[in-house]
């Protein structure tokens, strides 16, 4: 069963998205801010990370950079999530080390497609 780390500060987003993913058979763990996300990612054991970009303390871009910097083995796929929908968001996310990018409101089928594509054989 693939394990997903959801880094998201908004309680309702966490509640909603974790339940929707759980319904699709994922094991979802959560982090409520950047530092917690970085710490949990470092502990390992995740097949994929969903990273909200607008987080307090350190934002999603910075958290992603720190996760990438600390990684020693196979990089874990990271999908950036943002409700900003700004021109350039995608490039910025990819530059920070994310593997893909999606916008909120979440189109679940589209997001699942991206997750499956990144999990590939390990799913």
């Amino acid at each position, binding site marked *: 069963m693939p394990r997903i780390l959801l880094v998201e500060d908004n309680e309702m987003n966490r509640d909603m998205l974790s339940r929707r993913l759980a319904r699709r058979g994922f094991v979802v763990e959560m982090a409520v801010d950047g530092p917690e996300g970085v710490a949990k990612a470092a502990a390992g054991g995740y097949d994929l990370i969903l990273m909200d970009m607008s987080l307090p303390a350190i934002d999603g871009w910075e958290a992603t950079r720190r996760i990438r910097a600390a990684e020693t083995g196979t990089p874990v796929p990271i999908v950036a999530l943002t*409700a900003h929908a700004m021109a350039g968001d995608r490039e910025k996310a990819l530059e920070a080390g994310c593997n893909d990018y999606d916008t*909120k*409101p979440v189109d679940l089928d589209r997001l699942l497609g991206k997750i499956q594509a990144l999990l590939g054989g390990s799913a």
Partner: protein
Amino acid sequence: MTDAAGTTPNAWRASGAVTGSQAVAELRHNLRTPVNHIVGYTEMLLEDAPPEDTARRAPLQEILAAAQDVLARISVVLAPTLSQVAAEALTGLYGDLREPQARIVRAVTALQTQSGSALDAAALDDLGKILHAAEQLAPHRPAAEATPGAGVGTGSHDAACRVLVVDDDAANRDILQRRLQRLGHRVFPAESGVRALEMLAAEPFDLVLLDVMMPGMDGFEVLSRIKQDAATRDIPVIVISALDDLSAAVRCIEQGAEDFLSKPFEPVLLKARVGASLEKKRLRDRERAYLRDVDRVLGAAGAVEAGTYQAGSLGDVARRADALGKLARVFDTMATQVRAREQQLHEQVRALRAEIATARRATVGGSTKASEVPTLHTGERLAGRYDILASLGNGGMGAVYRAKDLELGEEVALKTLRHDLVGDPQLIERFKTEIRLARRISHRNVVRTHDLGEWRGTYFLTMEYVEGITVRELIDTRGRLAADAVLAIGSQLADALVVAHSEGVIHRDIKPQNLLLDGQGVLKVMDFGVARLAERGNQLTEAGLVVGTPAYMPPEQLFGEEIDARADLWACGVVLYECLTGRLPFEAATPMALIATVLQDEPTPLADLTSDAPPALTGLVMQLLAKRRDDRVPSAQALRERLGAIA
């Protein structure tokens, strides 16, 4: 943006303009986040709803549709490309979000109150989250606006509305007041019908909650007076009565009440009905405002027709975020541009008229060169139909007369054609075809061709008679023309060519002699279709038969290549060059030398010869004189646009 508790911060509720793409992005984020919640929870509820349970699925689908509406509105007003959003646009957006927001709230309320609903506690909890998210979409009015002590509460989807509560019972008034305040409304209590009418006359209200059984003036009477007064007629009234009495309800509805609630009321029902009534009023008000704005756009159209339209006078209509706003903006821009263009043309024509008037004074008493070989005489009648009134001169192809067409009863110009040009029957057939084509061109800048006739071996053409002077005469008497006058000539010439070329007619002989100007400065192009006839005379091997001059012919024509519409554009270039400088771009002592110079030499740059012409105009004329036709302005339409863009 740190909405850890799942609530949206109040910062975005500021009604001022938002500047900077980051600020716009944050605002977009703050509005999209609740939509994300609404969509997510609703989709989960839909997943759980049995396919056949349409009573549950329909409101959920309505919520999703409303959420899509919200997103669409957000992406228009807060587009990712924007770095600034005006305060009015924001206010408009918040106003626009209320409608889908109300739809979401109504659908959630419908689901919460569904009888026999199979929704479990978790689902009801999620519905509460959807409602909470929906409340984040449109701001409440700032607390400062509320009446001191009225206490604007939270938890309502409605912005604070002014509600008048009419009840003689103090306890009832108190309960209603507190419940409505908790819904976020401003409540004004009245203890009697008379007092209520006084308050309605003095202040605006969004809703009246009216008790039926009251001493003195009862609720029916109050309702009747509210509905009779044009000023209060549109305020929705919800009648509340302890009478669990269907006939009272019917009577109230018949008198124009919006809704009816019986005491003791269900808070949920009160909330839903108040919300629905206010929403209806809001929609009605919006529709009225919309129709008022439509009227203003129509009024502006009338003003344009009357020539009194002032740019920008559509004001706030043009700031609407909807299609009407777009229409108003486009309308305003177009009307302003048309006005500017008219003004500019007016100036140009005035300059042209001044040139013509001066030229006329110079030619008064001058020699209107009598025909050297007149074949017709004044007073003569041609073909039993045309009385020759005067000779207008000789052209390359024959003589021109002013004649009276006895059949049409109007004056025409009559042009005889040289015998040697029309001797070949095949040529005359081709010529007839050309004339037939030319007759299809109907335009104010084209001299209308009437008929081709033959009388005693003489072929003649009749055409519209225009009293005026030719551009040739104008240049000959004035030398160079003012840039504005040249623009007026060029624009009208381009207009004529646009129409002719679209009919497939190439003039082939554009030159100042063929351009007539009437007293009003209106240019008329003559001799469409005639040049084909003259081409025979242009055979270079028959030196003695050269008609006119190669001065206006493009290289491809001199090479004997098949020509296209761009030959006319070259000729336009020569004419405009001549107008601007008083001299031809290519000059030589003999026709053969002239041809050589047209083919080989570059004309003296216009910028060296004129100082007052706008560079855009001189550049354009030089481009028309490009030896390769691909290098010229591509079409008369393009020429017209380029000329129009020169101030």
